[in-house]
């Protein structure tokens, strides 16, 4: 009697809870399950994920069901007396062998998918080299000679205290990658400083970018669209702030974009040979500084005591001889987080950032650093 009352009470409670959860998930925009992918491998991964999930649910129903039954009916309060059976080799063998067979059932499709997943080389049509750098990504289209750095967008940085309503907060970059659909793209991963991981859930690509190693992975994007991701390996202070944006477009749009990027690079190369004014350099330098330097040296140049040195009043910056200042920015400082920016920025951007550091952030050395000087220092 008591038991039945209790049963009914808990049944009511459970139904209530389930319908509440259901109502919550029905009206909400958020995801409960794995992101569905737009690549053939990603679809296989999703299928495997669901297969193992349902196997777990099945086992769970059996095990938890048996537990629940036993908790309800084999309790002292309903007068159940304990039987004393124990030890049965047959049963032990059964519950060793049956799970083993289930595992083999999982391992077979998993093996096939894994082998396919790992084959990035065969028939690759485009090679995109991805370099992880604290805290940004550098992309190089190996055969097209296009290369740029991609940072968290200023629109996200501006609202970091209260991002309410900011679309794509933390998932927006200044320079997105553009890739064509229906081509096999091979990604090569590498890092300049610490280990990062490049992850775009919808492309089902997650691979570590490791200093001293080159890893690869691949994707064939089957639908046009914008796909967003993030760094997935703790890489220091701004690990949470190095997003990835992939624009998947038609092949012709892609070709156009590549041509535009190549023209831009040529224009920059010729501009670098010219003499730049202080005003232009400082203006450009501020943007370059905030995107590339401020993460460590601070938006006002104050640095972080004990971790990253200040730019304001730094002896290297204030030195009238520019050589040391140029050297540390161009070549970096081995054994520290200070990167060699010659690998990331062009001559104009480095010259601009240097000029800004010398004449902004509370410093006033009064000279300019010219792109041609940087070209010579490389």
């Amino acid at each position: 009697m008591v038991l039945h009352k209790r049963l009914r009470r808990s049944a009511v409670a459970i139904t209530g809870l389930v319908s509440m959860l259901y109502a919550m998930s029905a009206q909400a925009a958020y995801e409960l399950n794995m992101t569905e992918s737009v690549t053939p491998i990603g679809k296989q991964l999703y299928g495997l994920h669901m297969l193992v999930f349902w196997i777990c649910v099945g086992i769970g129903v059996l095990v938890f069901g048996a537990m629940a039954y036993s908790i309800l009916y084999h309790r002292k309060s309903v007068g159940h007396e304990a039987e004393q059976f124990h030890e049965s080799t047959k049963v032990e063998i059964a519950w060793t062998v049956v799970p083993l067979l289930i595992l083999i059932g999982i391992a077979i499709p998993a093996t096939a998918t894994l082998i396919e997943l790992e084959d990035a080389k065969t028939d690759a049509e485009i090679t995109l080299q991805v370099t992880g750098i604290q805290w940004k990504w550098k992309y190089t289209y190996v055969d097209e000679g296009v290369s740029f750095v991609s940072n968290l967008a200023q629109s996200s940085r501006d609202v970091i205290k209260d991002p309410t309503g900011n679309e794509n907060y933390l998932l927006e970059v200044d320079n997105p990658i553009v890739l064509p659909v229906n081509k096999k793209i091979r990604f090569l991963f590498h890092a300049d400083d610490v280990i990062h991981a490049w992850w775009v859930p919808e492309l089902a690509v997650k691979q570590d970018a490791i200093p001293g190693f080159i890893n690869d992975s691949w994707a064939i994007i089957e639908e046009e669209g914008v796909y967003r991701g993030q760094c997935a390996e703790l890489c220091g202070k701004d690990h949470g702030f190095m997003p990835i944006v992939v624009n998947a477009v038609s092949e012709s749009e892609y070709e156009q974009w590549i041509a535009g990027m190549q023209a831009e690079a040529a224009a920059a190369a010729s501009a670098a040979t010219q003499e730049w004014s202080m005003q232009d350099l400082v203006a450009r330098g501020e943007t370059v500084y905030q995107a590339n330097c401020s993460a460590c040296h601070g938006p006002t140049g104050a640095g972080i005591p004990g971790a990253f040195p200040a730019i304001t009043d730094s002896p290297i910056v204030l030195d009238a001889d520019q050589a040391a200042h140029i050297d540390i920015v161009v070549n970096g400082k081995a054994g520290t987080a200070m990167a060699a920016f010659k690998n990331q920025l062009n001559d104009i951007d480095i010259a601009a950032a240097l000029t800004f550091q010398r004449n902004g952030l509370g410093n006033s050395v009064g000279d300019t650093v010219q792109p041609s000087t940087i070209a010579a220092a490389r």
Partner: protein
Amino acid sequence: MSTEIAHETAHDEHHDHGPAKGLMRWVTTTNHKDIGTLYLWLSFIMLLYGGSMAMIIRLELFQPGLQWVEPHFFNQMTTMHGLVMVFGAIMPAFVGLANWLIPMMIGAPDMALPRMNNWSFWILPFAFGMLACTTFMEGGAPAFGWTFYAPLSTTFAPASTDFFIFAVHLMGISSVMGSINIIATILNMRAPGMTLMKMPLFVWTWLITAYLLIAVMPVLAGAVTMMLTDRHFGTSFFDAAGGGDPVMFQHIFWFFGHPEVYIMILPAFGVISAIIPTFARKPLFGYSSMVYASASIAILSFMVWAHHMFTTGMPVAGELYFMYATILISVPTGVKVFNWVTTMWKGSMTFETPMLFALGFIVMFTIGGFSGLMLGVAPVDTQYHDTYFVVAHFHYVLVTGALYSIIAAFYYWVPKWTGHMYDERLGKIHFWWSTIAVNVLFFPQHFVGLAGMPRRIPDYALQFAEFNQISSIGGFAFGLAQVFFLYIVIKTIRGGEKATDRVWEGATGLEFEQLPSPPPYHSFNEPPPVK
């Protein structure tokens, strides 16, 4: 007849052998019960310390945007939280239980090496004191995660990392000494008739755990020593620029790290295998298969480490091997769960607090095992890896697994230890409060992880906001529940209904059948009869 006489004389010689008085009792003690108590208190303090860092993490993650702490400080919090919980809360708690229980369970007067026992404990407060100090140093505490992957933890780490390295060395020394002691005690000090295959499972699982510890703590020591020489003495073990290999760090770390996760769960299996039969009033279904399953898990645990590294770019053959070996671990783990459920089957169950926590353990540990199986499937792990899905997985196995077993053990044995029953009503409140809170806390983390939220980030995109908020609310509630637990612990030590010697109707084992509650300062001066 002759044993009785011997007993009498022994008693005469040993009367008036209680603990010394005052603070020095605790500093100089070589008594297994005192040292067990010290370990358990240290562990509780560390639980609250690590827990308060978790509260800071959940506070910052309560809503998108950076409101409370800077990213660098956030990383220090996740790092210190992990280190303190693993090395400070879970591991010492099990050593504390081992100290209290193993001599009583095998019929020994004390641990085999009592002075070393004192030393293994007293190293720890210094190790954790040193680790905690790093928070106040210039450049802050270690901020590279509890897994401290190089080169983030070498070239790019704050100066305080050297203190972290030294603290890890001390913890390692303490663990190895503790393990030698446990092995020596179990192998040499069992009462006549207590054959290996009669030992309670808690003793068995600890024996296996102790071997695991001795095998892997030196590996960890090696890893941090290589870090130290990379940082200061010009070596390049993990520095690619000098010909070293950052991935080798991960292999070494996880060769320690995976057995380490079983170090934190095998003794828990022992605890649950003691509690379920007691409250089901029915013997454990398959004692010997439980022993063999524990041993298989321990052996397999050495052969699966690289399942933490499926995205590092291992060769396919390596990934296939580590996938097969990893999912194979679910077999002996399943055997454990099936045995517990079959033990309950057709028993005569009652649901006192220890039983509630043990049942909670079985259900939620199994959920963690399911997500473990999913993670073990290498191709799909490339999508789960380093997301909140992994965070949910290891919190189900560690919080509702390891920690729940420790809490269950406390409620189960505290009447024996203190002679006082805890307050059953409060214990039940503690269970339900914790269990609801912990699921509100960790279950939604599966969802955000699958939807694409990486772990170890101080701020997140807006689509993750709802579940993070729910998770934070669960977090605060769970934190508060453990403060409530502190109140229950203190109340029980101070007083309470007198416990009987048997404590629980269905309890078996030497500590319940042969010793009063509370037991004398030296458990058995005479070997007890073993059935």
